[in-house]
């Protein structure tokens, strides 16, 4: 058990260092897009709410919309920053051969690496939330909402990791997986309420979305942060179901993919 924990810890530390080796690159990859995304939406909604006669849209006044968009920033930093670029490169360039003979599995290695990334993201999010509360641009109904929100965003990050892992594993079959990553990002942003609150979407469309995991990626975590009456247990179970479902697919894909693996460059 202790030996196993040491492996997790060593991988965590190496990954932490790797992620922060090129700090400017890390900031541009993770923080930059989220900030620009927020900057555009702030300006867009400000220009809409300054139109004469517009004070409330679908239950949101400007302050509430601003809060929503800031929480999108926090949730996307906390839960949707990870990508499977390295995983896909490892498979494509034949670098997973070493994992196959190490006494630490491929999945465990990438999970530990993800946890290191998530550790950095939690620190960034903590700093961002504190800063936004001091200004004050974001207000929370109580401390409990913040903790519930952070807990749920952590669960979302795990589902996001599984989805990214799934895309990365497709490198066993595909020459390039970046297209699938972009498709996943575009679809998730649009359907999860990251661009607009779901109240702005046609009702029939939102009903359809209820049967998908997408609202749980952004919209539901934001509502939990805002202290809305969301059944946390139910929401967690839904996320757990989707995470296990994708995990099972990943397990099958890895087993089948390894059979096709040619260890390019060996």
């Amino acid at each position, binding site marked *: 058990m202790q030996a196993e924990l040491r492996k997790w810890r060593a991988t965590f530390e190496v990954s932490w260092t790797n992620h922060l080796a090129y700090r400017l690159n890390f900031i541009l990859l993770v923080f930059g897009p989220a900030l620009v995304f927020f900057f555009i939406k702030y300006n867009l909604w400000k220009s809409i709410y300054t139109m004469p006669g517009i004070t409330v849209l679908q239950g949101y006044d400007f302050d509430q919309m601003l809060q929503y968009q800031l929480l999108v920033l926090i949730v996307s930093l906390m839960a949707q920053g990870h990508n499977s670029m390295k995983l896909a490169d490892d498979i494509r360039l034949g670098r997973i051969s070493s994992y196959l003979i190490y006494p630490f599995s491929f999945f465990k290695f990438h999970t530990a690496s993800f946890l290191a990334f998530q550790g950095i993201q939690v620190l960034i999010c903590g700093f961002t939330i504190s800063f936004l509360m001091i200004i004050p641009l974001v207000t929370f109904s109580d401390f409990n909402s913040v903790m519930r929100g952070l807990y749920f965003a952590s669960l979302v990050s795990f589902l996001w990791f599984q989805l990214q892992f799934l895309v990365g594993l497709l490198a066993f079959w595909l020459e390039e997986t970046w297209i699938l990553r972009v*498709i996943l990002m575009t679809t998730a942003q649009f359907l999860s309420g990251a661009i607009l609150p779901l109240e702005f979407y046609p009702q029939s469309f939102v009903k359809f979305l209820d049967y998908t995991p997408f609202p749980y990626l952004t919209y539901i975590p934001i509502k939990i942060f805002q202290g809305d009456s969301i059944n946390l247990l139910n929401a967690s179970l839904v996320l757990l179901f989707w995470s296990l479902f994708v995990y099972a697919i990943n397990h099958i894909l890895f087993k089948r993919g390894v059979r096709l693996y040619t260890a390019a460059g060996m």
Partner: protein
Amino acid sequence: MIKTIKKYSRVYRHFVSTSIALGTSFRLHFVLLILMDLLFYFSSLASVSFIFDHVNQIGPWQRTEFMFFVCFMLAVDHLHMTFVSESFWELSHQIRTGSLDFLLLKPIGTVFHAFLRFIRPASALNIVVTWGLLIYYGQAIGLLWWQWILMPILMLLSLTLLVTMEILVSCSMFITIESFGINFLRMQLQQLARWPDFVYRLWARRILTFGLPVILVGSAPVHWLLSPFEFKFMAYMFLAIIVMWLIIAPVWRLSLSRYESASS
């Protein structure tokens, strides 16, 4: 001059033919690229359409004008995806691995080769969608025949301004060792250009017009198409293109002097 143009045309023909051969080698990859672009077009249009389900206008524009702007930017984006996008990603790889050496040794302009080498044939097919949408919304706002004739020129001007700015941003790849993030920064410029100027607050608008003139990419031509007697934005756009073209060569040379030629 004509000899040089002929030489570069011949080289570009080879770029196109090798890119087609490369792009069609992996069929699923080819189809997924088309799907990716279509999803992006759909989400961009649907987001604006959903907003207009609840408001009558944003700034001075109503739904049709705004949708026309979005379609214009999608058409520019389509040209960008087809003709230049891939080369920026490759450049980052070439600088990191040192394979840019081979490019520097060739008897051809390095900027030409570095930024126009790769073409995406799959994205090219989406021209039917982007121009179909542009024609639909162009007719809805009542564009005249001469405006349609000028449309491809305006689009090329927009693409030129955008790509020029991106080349300047990409020069910083020579300074950072891992330059993947610079490409993400470049993509953020595109994000900013996808919204009209009046959406931005006054200070942001000034910076994005005169400092980093990214909002001129779409706003200048579309404003001019909607109000042909107002030349202000187009004048800014021409000025921005001229200034940026003038500084590309020295900035590129300066950046090359920082190139470390990794692993050679």
